């Protein structure tokens, strides 16, 4: 444990040095690259996600709900060749994905050298090594809203909102904080599944459907489970649905 932490800390030091060196070298000239952008687009079923004001139909029953906060970590992005060897591995690959701009789009731009690849791999959550550290790598920040606070580690996915049951004035708060290493998920998409657009624009879209967090293989209703925080069993029910939340989205 100690050794791995030491390595982690050393790596962080080297990374900080690398950042400094990058700043210095960027003074001289910017290097050639061929950026590839992947846009994560958030939906509730087929409706674009709008935080705060927009009311959506309850996913598993009657009534409506709003989404006040929806965030998750996308991490360890890799571009792979046909036999799954990495062609490109994004450094410091921890992105805190949020949708504050009212368009429901979060772009991630990969600064890679344009070599050919066949597949795109990424994960939802934070891998266990980084999750046991307080180092600031990418968007990991122990002072942000994703840090648990009571223990080292991060929430992988956060969804907070209000549920308005029909004919009842009462607002039921919805709080889903999903962490724990067993809920870390890795996804693989082939380049061909994005169609020809990718070759033309170097940009592709991946949809995350918030509805599938609840109505995936495990049906999770707002009535029976309005809140999931540190109850590991409950988190696992949602965690099981996370494997199907992303899909390729044609333009």
């Amino acid at each position, binding site marked *: 444990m*100690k050794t791995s*932490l*030491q390595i982690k*800390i050393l790596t*962080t*030091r080297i990374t*900080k040095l690398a950042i*400094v060196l990058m*700043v*210095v070298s960027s*003074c001289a000239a910017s290097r050639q690259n061929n950026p590839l952008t992947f846009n994560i687009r958030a939906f509730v079923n087929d409706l674009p996600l709008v*935080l*705060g*004001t927009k009311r959506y139909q309850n996913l598993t029953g009657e009534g409506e709900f*709003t989404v*006040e*906060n929806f965030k998750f970590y996308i991490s360890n992005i890799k571009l792979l060749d046909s036999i799954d060897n990495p062609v490109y591995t994004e450094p410091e690959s921890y992105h*805190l994905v*949020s949708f*504050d701009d009212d368009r429901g789009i979060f772009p991630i731009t990969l600064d890679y050298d344009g070599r050919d690849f066949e597949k795109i791999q990424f994960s939802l959550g934070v891998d*266990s090594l980084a*999750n*046991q*550290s*307080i180092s*600031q790598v990418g968007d990991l*920040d*122990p*002072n*942000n*809203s994703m*840090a*648990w*606070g*009571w*223990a*080292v*580690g991060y929430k992988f996915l956060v969804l*907070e*909102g*209000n549920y308005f049951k029909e004919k009842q004035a*009462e*607002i*039921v*708060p*919805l*709080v889903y*904080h999903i962490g724990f*290493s*067993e809920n870390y998920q890795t996804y693989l998409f082939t380049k061909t599944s994005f169609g020809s657009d990718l070759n033309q624009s170097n940009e592709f879209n991946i949809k995350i459907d918030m509805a599938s967090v609840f109505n995936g293989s495990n049906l999770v209703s707002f009535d029976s489970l*309005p*809140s999931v*925080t*540190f*109850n*590991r069993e*409950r988190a696992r029910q949602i965690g099981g649905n996370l494997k199907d939340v992303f899909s390729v989205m044609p333009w």
Partner: protein
Amino acid sequence: MQPPKEISELLHFVMNHRIIILFSVFFWLLSQCNSPENQPSPLNDFQAPFYYGVFDLPEENPLTAEGVALGRMLFYETSLSSNNQVSCATCHQQEKAFTDGRAFAIGVSGKPTSKSSMPLNNLLWGPKHFFWDGRASNLEEQSLIPIQNPDEMGLEIEEAVEKLGQLPIYPPLFKAAFGTDEITPSKIAMALASFQRILISQNSKYDKYLRGETELSKEELLGKELFMTHPDASVGLRGGNCADCHSQFLTSGFATGYDGFKNNGLDNDENLEGGLAYVTGKESDWGKFKVPSLRNIALTAPYMHDGRFKTLEEVIDHYDHQIKDSKTLDPLMREASNQKPVGGKESGFHLTADEKKAILMFLQTLTDEDFITNKDFNDPHH
């Protein structure tokens, strides 16, 4: 499956191995990008705790020794007010952790303003929007607003420039900080912002604990655990729910977007002030105010944007059982409870008397005597 490690354990390990980031090296390297002659000197002895994390500085306003020195002079300069009696430090007094002990700030007009003076500390981190309603999106923009507010310092910015130019001490200080002795509003703003940025509180008992230099008492430790924990009655986990809004090390609001602005249940819909909604124009932001840093909180009474609570006990009681329902009440606050059932009009954390006392004890570990007596932060005019 490995359980999450205790934060204190991990921090002690990190601190024992002397992982301190020397930001000065970074600034020095940055300054090498463009090096015109007569460059002000970068701030060399500037250090910040590892656990506060990285921060950004505006490219056009690097931290320099001369800029900070000028900013400190201006911060304590009463000539920046219409009656020559009010400076920034009138409402931001070092011994009160840069607050004024009042519910509502009072400046040149003698008329109470609509808000309580915000504490100033660790402004390099946390929310990127300033004032209780977030109307300034950087410290440069923030700095000039109180000078021009008719109730605070009451001086048109052109008048401020003219008055400073007539004081022999200032042109050389502007020349040292910015290369020419011409005084402009943006230079005043940059210098004031720089001084505010170095107001770093990093030597409280909590900091010493985080660095492994001291222990917290049993009660303080319980308070810390409660502070950090969102209660989950389904697994018997008790919590005071503070860290849902106040980050674990900085104890400030969160930096991402407007995450550091919350409706914390002070009023119902009928009485709720607009706050952030006036800045964003969004109905869903109605009643949200900036989550302040809790560093030195024992010194900054009275509390909340309108100073409605005189003591920390009153603040804790508010969260414990006096949360008022409204449309934009934070869902985390609505949901959090140490009792079942949760939600609806029964909002409140429902802690025991011992737990409330423990949280109070932990809040008192955030007091930093070195910060309020630091001679680099006091009035340079005397």
